[in-house]
């Protein structure tokens, strides 16, 4: 369990001041992701493009066009050299960051892809989609077909998270499934509610599962017990992210009314909440080191928040 009782006093050190607005996307921004060290960020949206930003300076660096439909998720490799994005066109694109070329198009998903992640070494990609499957793809060889297809889900896979040894995926069928590659077993945690987002705590001991009943649940990964529930925000229809702060002290999530909520991890009480966007907050990414946060919204902006 994430031991983080040393949380700051109510909402003091939490980012709530708008530091920058990243404008450029035409239409809704569906996701925003920091890179590993938090220097850059990537956003993707309904305008079928990916954008690379320097959020600290508020500069737009590059736009990557290549998707035929909306881009739902983007992932950056740990060395910042590669991107991967997925979206409504059922394609998983593997990009070269500097040249902006598409290195490979992975095709195999039978419908929209909701989420994609690089593994630690950026050697494999794991994606989950509406076709009820999680697929693993090889970045090193020239294969275009998936290394493995996991199709034990009974509904759309909304979110995928990777650890060094596991694939964790949340699905609308109400399960968070952990595929332990090292031990060769699948752990199914049934939550009874459609899982919208899955996030890991920084100590990787807990999984935060945002559910479509406007509740975020914190699960202990070892035992599968529910440690806490976080309520107050609104999440019933949209795919949106929730995550933990880099200190594992608070839980952050957007809301469908454009607000951002902070909960105390242990108490489950709302520590802070503010109106961040005019519309649904789709993506949230917390800076890996600093107390800084990015939110993306259907209103077409990405905003950076600082304390």
């Amino acid at each position, binding site marked *: 369990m994430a031991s983080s009782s040393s949380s700051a006093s109510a909402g003091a050190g939490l980012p709530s001041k708008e530091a920058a607005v990243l404008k450029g996307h035409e239409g809704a921004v569906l996701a925003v992701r920091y890179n590993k060290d938090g220097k850059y960020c990537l956003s993707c949206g309904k305008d079928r493009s990916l954008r690379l930003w320097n959020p600290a300076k508020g500069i737009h660096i590059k736009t990557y066009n290549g998707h035929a439909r909306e881009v739902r998720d983007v992932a950056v490799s740990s060395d910042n050299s590669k991107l991967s994005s997925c979206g409504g066109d059922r394609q998983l694109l593997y990009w070269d960051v500097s040249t902006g070329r598409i290195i490979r198009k992975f095709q195999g998903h039978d419908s929209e892809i909701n989420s994609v992640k690089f593994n630690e070494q950026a050697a*494999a990609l794991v994606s989950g989609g509406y076709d009820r499957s999680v697929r693993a793809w090889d970045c090193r060889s020239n294969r275009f077909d998936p290394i493995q297809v996991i199709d034990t889900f009974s509904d759309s896979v909304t979110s995928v998270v990777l650890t060094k040894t596991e694939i964790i995926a949340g699905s609308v069928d109400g399960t968070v499934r952990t595929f332990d*590659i*090292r031990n*060769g*077993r*699948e752990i*199914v945690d049934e939550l009874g*509610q459609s899982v919208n987002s899955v996030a890991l705590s920084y100590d990787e001991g807990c999984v935060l599962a945002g559910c479509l009943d406007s509740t975020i*649940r914190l699960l202990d990964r070892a035992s599968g017990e529910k440690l806490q529930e976080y309520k107050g925000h609104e999440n019933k229809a949209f795919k949106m992210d929730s995550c933990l702060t880099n200190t594992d002290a608070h839980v952050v999530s957007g809301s469908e009314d454009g607000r951002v909520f902070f909960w105390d991890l242990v108490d489950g009480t709302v520590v802070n909440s503010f109106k961040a966007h005019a519309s649904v907050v789709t993506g949230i990414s917390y800076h890996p080191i600093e107390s800084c946060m990015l939110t993306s919204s259907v209103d077409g902006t990405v905003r950076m928040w600082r304390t």
Partner: protein
Amino acid sequence: MGHDDEGVRAYYGTPLVSEEELNPRKRKAALDQGQARRVAPWNQEVTDSEGRRRFHGAFTGGFSAGHFNTVGSKEGWTPQSFTSSRQARAADKKAQAAYDFMDEDEKAEFEAKNMQVRPEFDTFGSTAAEYERRQALKEIGDRPSAIPGPLIDEIIIPVNDSTGVKLLRLMGWRGGRQIGPKHVAAASGARREARKAMMSLAQNNSTNTVSSGPEEIQGRCDELILGDEEDFDADVPKITPAFVMNPKKDLYGLGFDPFKDAPEFRERKRALEEDRSGDGGWRGHALSLKRPSLFRPNAGKIGGGFGIGALEDLGDEDEDVYDQGMEFEVQELEEDEKPVEKLQKRLLEDPLHKGSTLTGFHISKEPPKKKLWLPPPIIPENFNFIHKFDKPLGSERLQERPPPPAAQPPDDPELCKYIEGLASFVAKSGPRFEEISKEKQRENPMFAFLFGGLGHDYYKRRLWEEEEKLVKEGKQHIRIDHVESEKAGRQSKFSPKVGADERGKMLGEIPLPKGVAPVQRQNTPVASAVRADDRARLQSALSSTFTSTSPQVGETAKNSQPFKNDSAKQNRFEQFLKGKSVGGLWKPTSGGSGLSEAERSEEIFEFEAIARMQQQGLALENRTPLNVQGKPVPELVAIMGSRFAAAGVETKTTMAEAAVGTELVLRGEVKQYPRREENPWRPASMLCKRFDLLDPFAGKPPPLPKPRSRTESFILLTNPVESKLEYRPPPSHAPAIQKSATEGPKTSDSNHKRDEGPVMFEEKIEPIPERPVDLYKALFADDTDDEDEETRPSQASAQAGPSAGDPMNRAEAANAVLNRLVAGDFLESLGKELGLKVPEPVQPAGDRPAAKELDGIGLGRSKNDFENKGTEFRRQSGGLVGAVRDQHGFFSRHERSGRQSQIKGSVAENLYSGRESQYTALREKQLQPDKIDALLGVKTRQIDVPDNPGRWADDSSIARPRAIDKEAKVAAAPSTATRYGDTEPESDSDKEKALAKRIRREERRLQREKEKEKHKHRKEKHKHRKDHSHEKSSRKKARV
């Protein structure tokens, strides 16, 4: 000789032209086409069909296509020489058309598109007309005529006689005459006469109708003349359909003829028309230009003016009106009503026409009646369209009766409770329930108050009070039909739907503890609506496994004794309550009571219901529908059946499924989310590599594809390679077999075997993968103990039968097993359908632990015996019935053992957690023992056991298994053979055995022969394949 040959020889067909003689151009083209495939595209030449080069290096700076290398035609395409158009501005300007730039092949193509008929074959003159038109246009261009526009030229078209007409003329045909024998036309003579008469009549009668048009007259004259000539040429119809130009003046649809079936009206219409237009008529005539017929440009006109009368018919019968040469037929139907009215008036006035326009047709003098329309009735202002009752429905009944005098409750508090409960129940459900309970509880002293005994007054008073209360609450009107909906708050008042909870109650499930348990009363009557056998089944299948902890039940039920009459039952009830208060897994402790399975489960069901009622303090009112035996009251069932039609209609399986569903729902609610489940999962080796992890399944063969059907799974199971991969042998197994071999005397053997029945199935509930090892062993292991196992018995029985050791035989046997498996499955289902049952052996509770110790033996030895017995029995009784029975015995025992054994939590979890696959899983579990048994049977078919199916139900000595166990521990393996031999039993079984052995020997012989054949075949195949591959390789070499 040669000359002779030449003379005799005959030549057919056209000789082949040698290639040299071909047009060199064409040859080149052909060659090019052949080469085109080989030459790179940029080196290929584009040629036309004649083989001429089309693009002359225009892109590579070569010569061009036009002018110099003039495109290909003789003259080529030369550019126009420039001529100044200063002087002749417009006149000389010659328009260029695409045609001018075409090659001959292109021209041919172009012309092919615009097909034209050459004038001599232009039968219909269309092309000629077109040609003329064009010509005229040209001429117009050349010399402008007095009348501007192409009108005249378009109208007047010169037409040549076609070749056919010319030919006919040459043959003596005159225009307008029929081709063919003349007498055909003679048939119309009589008709012609009649028409003539008509004509003259018409002439006399009405001057109006006789037209004065010049053509008409001409036509008539013609006819008269022709008629005089005694020639029927006038009647000869035109052979080609004439093109009648009828200007369309009406508003009918194209081709619609309003007078099609009533030509008389046409005539009338025309008369009217003429009448209207008067003498200055012929408007239509003037306009309707008749195009001359092709075949007889000047064909004689035939009698027009009248059209066709009723008696009139021209030419052939099937000729249409239009074809009759009505040159001036004008169809003008006026849509405006005026003239019609005028006509009508005139006709009415005219005495000649009065009522005789047509024979048998009279015009009605009375105008049509107008339909009477009545105004809608006026609703009085004070009308109220919603009826309101002054008082609730049930109130009259109450008010009729005077309230019974207040009575003191009886001293016995329990009785008091019963009375109160029943009263409230009856008040809610109607007086019929009172009658029913009266009838049913006639003997029950507790219910004496119903019959005027102790507490009767109090009961009456309570009943009245309850009814009063209900009326006041306004609930009376919902009454029986919606007792349920009353309590289930979320259910709408009038929906007869049954929610999950209610259904669960109906099925007698125990609601597991919730945060706030919804108190639901009066569910037992509903529960009893479920059919008795269903309930029993459900009970045994579902709720027997789990009971909920409810300590308060025990307390409340301590002093209540609902089964005073039946002390044994009361005991059992108390025991049940005790068990319930403990909670957890349900342990049936009522064994030995002499109740059948169905009865017991029914009883449990009843107990459950009662316990629940007592818990809710409503024991009595819920008790009423159940009589003492716990069987549903028929009347009540009937009532409930009508109320719960849907549930009644449901089949057993759906009920069961629903029950499972509700069970799961309940469990789901209770066992809060999140739930955790672990499954094996195999990551792809590449995935492991990319994650820099060791593949946990490294070196293991790839996983099997999921079997889709049961038969498929059979096949997979019996596939030796796969079973090898999947299943590891349980470590204790081999010794177990040995142990079993060391068993004591045969008689006791058969006994303890029976005892083991449940035990061995207990083991079967364990995870599946460990089981089929025996098959694998049977098929492939050539370890000695297997060999021993097989040879030993045969030695012991001093039979010189063929040794069963050779592996070929085993493979064959495995085949047979597969067959038997399939057959067994079939027989199982058949048996179930037939409803055959095997009497159950009653198992004393004491022998379980001992039997448990013998698990291994159970697997190894007794199962074999069992199988053996089964097969033997089958053989004896001619197969089917025996087999069915065999299967049944098997399963009933299995079931029982399943319940009696303490299933571990995980196993139970396993049983109930799979959602959809639950049933299949259960099925498989049932199947599994069968399978294994059959499989095991392979190995030990030689072991002979005296068969006596009747002995199954025997009670066996309890101590035996233990004794054997000890013996097994002590006894040394080698001595078993002799011991086996020693215990060879009675003589009658000997005979059977001998017979069986003979059969087996025969079988084995056959098998071996078959196997040999197969082997041979395989060898041949192999050889063939080898040859083939050899050939291939040699061919390859040759190519190289």
